[in-house]
């Protein structure tokens, strides 16, 4: 990982957490739409599961520590988002990837709610089921916009991965 990618990742985590707390969450309340989760998905869909997992874990841990619930819950969920999205990336069809991001983020959000209900840290498990569909739709819409930005940035000279990720090679081989 280059120094520039590290700085970019930290800036992205901070920015997205601030936007989530001050804009997205208040505006879309009571829907638990998560901009950080969608960003993790977008990065994983663009850069592969390794980057997605690392970014998801780091962002989740910072988000966990910034709240009162046990640290590690969001880190685990967003790690899963990075992993699944990185593995399921299409990379050529924007709408397909946005839908993947929306579904995975919706499920991850419900999983986080269930996990928090399990450790008795606030929400009840029925919230997870009630919000699943609307949150998935909202996450998909968010992902449509965010994917375009993330793809453009991660394919720039400064933030491009030092080595092509394995999935790129596979895709390259498949598409000839």
């Amino acid at each position: 990982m280059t120094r520039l990618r590290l700085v970019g990742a930290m800036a992205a985590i901070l920015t997205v957490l601030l936007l989530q707390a001050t804009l997205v969450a208040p505006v879309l309340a009571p829907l638990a739409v998560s901009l950080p989760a969608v960003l993790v998905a977008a990065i994983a869909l663009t850069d592969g599961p390794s980057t997605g997992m690392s970014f998801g874990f780091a962002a989740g841990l910072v988000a966990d520590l910034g709240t009162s619930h046990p640290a590690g819950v969001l880190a685990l969920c967003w790690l899963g988002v990075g992993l699944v999205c990185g593995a399921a990336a299409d990379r050529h069809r924007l709408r397909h990837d946005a839908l993947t991001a929306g579904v995975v983020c919706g499920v991850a959000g419900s999983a986080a709610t269930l996990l928090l209900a399990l450790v008795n840290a606030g929400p009840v498990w029925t919230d997870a089921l009630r919000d699943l569909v609307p949150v998935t739709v909202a996450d998909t819409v968010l992902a449509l916009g965010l994917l375009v930005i993330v793809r453009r940035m991660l394919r720039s000279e400064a933030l491009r991965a030092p080595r092509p990720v394995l999935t790129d090679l596979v895709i390259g081989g498949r598409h000839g």
Partner: protein
Amino acid sequence: MRKLTRRQRLSAIALSVLAACFITLDLGGGSLREAHTGVRGTLGGLYRGTDALLGPARRWLEGVPSAGTNQARIEQLRREVARLNGELAKQAADRHTEAQLAGLQRASDGSDHTLLPARVIALGPGQGFDWTVTLDVGSRGGVQAGQTVTDGAGLVGRVLQADSDSSVVLLAADPGSGVGVRDVRSGEIGVASGAGPSGFLFVPLSPTARIEVGDRLVSGPSGASSYIAGLSVGTVTAVRTSADGTVRASVRPATSPTAVDLVAVILDPGATVAGRAPLRPGR
């Protein structure tokens, strides 16, 4: 779905275990309390800064879904404001009426007359005269034709006709009517003819009478006028002497003929009154 490399699988497992450790540690005790406090403090400061920047946009966005609701709320508040303004106006009118009634009571006390308060309910020509008003009291309240009407400060007119619950009053300022008056300063008597909104035109009986600007005129003398004597009619504002020696004076009325509202009919002594309570001297 692509297959993960061995390294990616190991990384995923390691990070998952790490996350589980964090959860266990945080649930088990206060091991991460300091970390929570530090991150919360840092993010809290940043949240405030960001909110200052994005707050207006956020509030605008939050208001979009409830725009219709807000419109309904605005309409409701407008109706409420209109209702409260109406109540305020009513209270102001009540205070005005209270002051007028107090004035009438003082007039009753000062003149030993019994006054029946009445509200002007209609204006307009009637009975062949131009300047009449209709009051909301009539013969059931003791009102009879010919009785004098005052507003407590001065002469208003006299009752032309009394029905059971209303009466028509000819204003003293009617251009076709005249009032027998006395100049308070000189004692000269004469006739004040109605001049509409201008008030009266006073012509003393004596051609040699000395009338001065500022002289106050009252109705009277008693028995020689159709009005109760002693009521203020107006104040002389200009005096002109014609070539034949006739003196004429313009008189500003004590009561504006175009702004009468709450007035009182001066009842005859011993009149039977039903309904509205009259104002009696010394009460």
